[in-house]
């Protein structure tokens, strides 16, 4: 295989050598002169850019410091709502759980009220006399719990 590749390479080069004199095409001198001046201009442009960057380097450090400062100042404000919950002595998960419990309890009471015959009496203002718990009190409590969770107060 390698010998075959070598043979192919040798033959290709021999064939190419026969055509080589006809392949030469020198560029017009004006084109070379243009390339030379473009190269010089590019060197100058890159050097000017490098110098600008060197001059800007101290400012870049200053800008980074300003950004860090701004982020540092903003951080406590962004954390306000969760901080309020934590200050209340319970986390958001615990408050949410409490609200779910309260909602379940009020739902149960509503169900029992609907099943009981004294609903009409309660609505007629006789609830206090029956000794039964106020059906709206637990609902109020559950809504208060939800409010705490949502508003963080």
């Amino acid at each position, binding site marked *: 295989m390698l010998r075959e590749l070598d043979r192919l390479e040798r033959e290709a*080069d021999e064939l190419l050598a026969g055509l080589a004199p006809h392949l030469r*095409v*020198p560029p017009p001198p004006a084109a070379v002169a243009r390339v030379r001046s473009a190269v010089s201009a590019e060197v100058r442009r890159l050097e000017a850019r490098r110098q600008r960057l060197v001059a800007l380097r101290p400012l870049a450090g200053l800008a980074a410091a300003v950004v860090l400062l701004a982020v540092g100042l903003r951080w406590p404000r962004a954390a306000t709502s969760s901080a309020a919950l934590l200050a209340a002595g319970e986390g958001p998960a615990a408050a949410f759980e409490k609200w779910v419990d309260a909602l379940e309890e009020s739902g149960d009471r509503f169900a029992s009220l609907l099943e009981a015959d004294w609903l009409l009496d309660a609505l007629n203002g006789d609830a206090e006399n029956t000794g039964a718990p106020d059906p709206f009190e637990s609902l109020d409590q559950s809504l208060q719990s939800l409010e705490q969770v949502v508003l963080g107060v």
Partner: protein
Amino acid sequence: MDSAGLDRLLQRARKRDAQALEKLVDMYSSRVFGMLYRLTGSREAAEDLLQETFLRVVRMIGNYQHAGRFESWLFRIAANLARDHARRGRRRGQRATLEGSERDGAGAVPAVDPRTDPGARLLEREAGERLNACLHELPEMDREIIVLRHFSGLSFREIADVLEIPLGTALARAHRALRRLRESFREES
């Protein structure tokens, strides 16, 4: 220029010494232009790509690690630019067409020393024109292989790397293309 001289020149060029970079332009323009012209078939495109090649050299030479393969690096840049140019041409739906510069002689660049007699110059120019026509009848990749091998001095293995094809394929294509080229060149002659 000997190897040590080229090393010194490249060291200066890496520091973006304008004189060193201009010297590289003088040294390699002829071969790079020849390759670009044979690949694109357009003198205008070849001139533009020649300039772009050396501008890229200026921008990238800081990262170039010289290990005695500057020519390989340079011709890879030029070959890639020529390929991009061909790709853009295809996207625009244009076919690479041969310019009249060699055909009509207007603006043609002599392929031989101008001190030789005008008759020899004319024959040489005609031969160059015929060869260019034959080259552009070849599939693009075959043409690339031949032109890269002739102008850049890249080995067939390096050419295979540039074109992302196996070495055996590169050699087989070169072989077939050169035979075809020689036959059509003889017929035309």
